[in-house]
């Protein structure tokens, strides 16, 4: 069955017990495949699935057409002549302002922003979560509550004070500054994630290590880290997609030549000069969406676990 359902151990348990209890024929009563109920059920789900798939389909189809074909046909029709030129153009030649080296620049900028931001934010948050779960001190829960409530404050409220702080430190507009910003705003959700995970580990382990004389960092490095690989993967998925998709911080905290991919994409597509090349725009959009989509399709159940852990407090 599905991964979410494994959370529901009660239902799974009763399913496993049922065959041994029921005398006579085993298993569920076979149902008619084409009952009215099933047609309704799969009909509605299928329609909904179509609605969700439509934009992806339109993106792919449009990005493979030439401009003349787009001007003639409708956006849903499959391409008559498949061309990969829009993709090449979006990647290597599309213009933003004076630069005409395409989205590749934004892609590499995003990679440069994402990799250190993901590592730093996860390290900092996992240590905080560990300290909250295992080494509480007076006031630690209060700080944590402020952190969680702070997660709901609109970024616009805190953005200017951060600009000032970074400017005072002399790192406004640099990569370091943006990494700090991503670490700050990734903190609430990640700390919550790690705190709940570490708190769910058996306490005896921690106590045994304490008796053996291990200290704060030793327990973290030798016991907690190796035991919590899955949660690190979940945190990584959250952060990779989150930071890749970020737009606001990219606009505010970087300079035009270090703009991340989302910002550059928006500038390419919504630029007012020149003839609109819809196929190039859609290819560029797909390229920008590709990284989180790949992460999503590869990670599947872990992605769901990440957002569920983030959303439903554990």
């Amino acid at each position, binding site marked *: *069955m*599905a991964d*979410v359902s494994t959370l529901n151990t*009660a239902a799974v348990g*009763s399913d496993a017990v049922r065959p041994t209890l029921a005398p006579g024929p085993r298993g569920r009563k076979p149902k008619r495949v084409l009952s009215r109920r099933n047609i309704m059920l*799969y009909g509605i*789900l299928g329609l*909904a*699935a179509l609605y*969700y798939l*439509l*934009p992806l389909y*339109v993106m792919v189809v449009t990005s493979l057409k030439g401009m003349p074909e*787009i001007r003639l046909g*409708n*956006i*849903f029709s499959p391409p008559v002549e498949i061309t990969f030129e829009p993709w090449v153009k979006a990647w290597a030649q599309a213009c933003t302002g004076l630069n005409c080296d395409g989205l590749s620049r934004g892609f590499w900028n995003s990679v440069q922003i994402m990799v250190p931001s993901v590592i730093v934010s996860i390290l900092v948050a996992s*240590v*905080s979560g560990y300290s*909250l779960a295992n*080494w*509480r*001190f*007076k006031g*630690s*829960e209060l*700080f944590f*509550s*402020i*952190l969680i*409530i*702070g997660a709901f*404050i*609109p970024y*616009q*409220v*805190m953005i200017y*004070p*951060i600009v000032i702080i970074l400017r005072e430190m002399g790192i406004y507009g640099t990569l370091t500054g943006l990494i700090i910003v991503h*670490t*700050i705003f990734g*903190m609430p959700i990640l700390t919550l994630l790690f705190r709940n995970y570490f708190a769910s580990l058996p306490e005896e382990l921690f106590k045994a290590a304490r008796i053996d004389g291990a200290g704060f960092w030793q327990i973290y490095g030798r016991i907690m880290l190796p035991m919590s690989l899955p949660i690190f993967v979940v945190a990584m998925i959250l952060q990779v*997609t989150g930071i*890749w*998709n970020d*737009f606001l911080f990219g*606009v*505010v905290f970087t300079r035009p030549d270090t703009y991340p991919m*989302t910002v550059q994409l928006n500038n390419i*597509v919504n630029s007012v000069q020149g003839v609109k090349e*819809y196929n190039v*725009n859609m290819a560029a959009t797909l390229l920008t*969406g590709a990284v*989180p989509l790949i*992460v999503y399709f590869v990670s599947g159940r872990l*992605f*769901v676990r990440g957002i*569920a852990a983030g*959303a*439903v407090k554990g």
Partner: protein
Amino acid sequence: MAQSTPSARPNQLFRNLNSKIASIPMIFVALVIFLGGSIWTVVYSFTNSRLLPRTNFVGFDQYERLWASSRWIISIQNLAIYGILSLIFSLVVGFVLAALMDQKIRFENVFRTIFLYPFALSFIVTGLVWQWILNPDFGIQGIVRSLGWESFDFNPIYDADIVIYGILIAGLWQGTGLVMCLMLAGLRGIDEDIWKAARVDGIPMWRTYIFIVIPMMRPVFVTTLVIIGAGIVKLYDLVVAQTSGGPGNASEVPAKYVYDYMFQAQNLGQGFAASTMMLLTVAIIIIPWAYLEFGGRKRG
């Protein structure tokens, strides 16, 4: 509180020292950025700062100017329309999809993957795709017209009256998958025996959902509501990508107002006042929830 360290040490401050050192980033973020930053913004919203923040206090001037600005009023109206409709639709659609998914269907994983993938995409990508699909010449309007219905009018990109609904369509496409997932987790948390009892009593399925299951899922609904609500107030990238606030300023939203005044119009005071209003909105949503959630009992 502290689970460890011998009590022989006299100074309270140095107990559990490593943990405190490790928590410095968290404490810094909580106190300086979240708490301090918010207070700073609120305080400076009472000044007439323009290019740089200055402590020249002018009382409620900025707020008066804010509420006199037609652009701000439009922003608030748009956010209200978008917020209310997106709350209703995402809760209803999310719940219905989750309930359908919970009927022990085949291909559940396939359906879930399809419903949730837009959530992995950024608002920029979402906005640009829908800008293209809703394009009046080539998109839905153009296609329906070319099929023969010449007077068909559906142009949520350039028609100021319905532009916010175009953004709503895109926002729902991106976000309902998440609601569906949360609801599905909630439904799976309902005890199977409830369903059996309802069936024994002969209660039809839809009544069981409305009168038994939904009330039981109250915590899930509340959490979902808070998450959607907080996300709605932040609405920014989607508008920037899909319409850039246009046509004119028909699809402006508060978050965009704040950004434009702070970083482009160089009228910091207005930006601070507007962001304080956003903070107030969130506070109205969050405080009752936090009170209900954490006020009564102690967190464990």
